[in-house]
């Protein structure tokens, strides 16, 4: 498994355990969309690499979230990945949480 789901009362945390979000790992990430709650945090702490195939998988999660009125957030992104997300405007649809916001939202 390259992802680990943690369910809380009001949120889901999707921890991505694979160090690369690319064409090979995209499918499993896309398939996690069915388990999103009203508020879902994607935790990128272990991710070292993301390319456009990976961003495409994340966009599919955003599409699913929007369809069902849910909100996706990103946490623990590296500075490089933050830059890339901003280049393609992904942060508009998947806002980045600070550590404090992450803790406040999930109690962790």
């Amino acid at each position, binding site marked *: 498994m390259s992802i680990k789901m943690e369910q809380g009362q009001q949120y889901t945390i999707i921890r991505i355990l694979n160090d690369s979000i690319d064409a090979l790992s995209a499918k499993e990430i896309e398939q996690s969309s069915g388990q999103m709650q009203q508020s879902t945090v994607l935790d990128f702490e272990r991710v070292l690499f993301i390319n456009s195939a990976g961003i*495409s998988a994340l966009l599919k999660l955003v599409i699913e979230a929007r369809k069902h009125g849910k909100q996706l957030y990103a946490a623990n992104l590296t500075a490089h990945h933050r830059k890339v997300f901003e*280049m*393609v405007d992904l942060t508009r649809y998947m806002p980045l949480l600070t550590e404090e916001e992450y803790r406040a939202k999930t109690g962790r």
Partner: protein
Amino acid sequence: MANEAGAHIQEQTNSIIGTSNDVVDITIPSNHVFERIARDGAGLVARYLGFSDERAQDVQLAVSEAVTNAIEHGNKEDANVKVGVRFLVLKDKLAIQVIDQGEGLPADRINAAKPSIESKLAQEEESPRGLGIYLIQQLVDAVELQTNESGTSFTMWFNLGAAAQQERAEA
């Protein structure tokens, strides 16, 4: 290097190879597993040349995008067809060429406008792709596309910083 890919790369790079001190060639089957080898190789070369960690990650991502493009759109994911990746270390820059054996791309592909994420989301695209070339354009110092009916060559240029140039001059 496989013969066909090697010949194609040689043809494409003759003009600059004479000015390069170091040339590294990687040839991979058109399978996404091997894209990771090209990407890791790019990171290794960039760090060896003294690029900052942030810039080395830019190099890795640009190579990943070009190789993914070559695998998917050039060689149509046929694992029997090769993608060539050539690293040319020049005095003040690193050039990386990614070459496929596909049927060629429209020449204006390199001037891709910024993709609209909003449009992809609004249309609920099944496969919201098309970001790769845009990302390459954002990450490199210069890029050149050569394409014809026997393949496409992406050459990406990354300038060495002053400190890295000095280090290489003293080496």
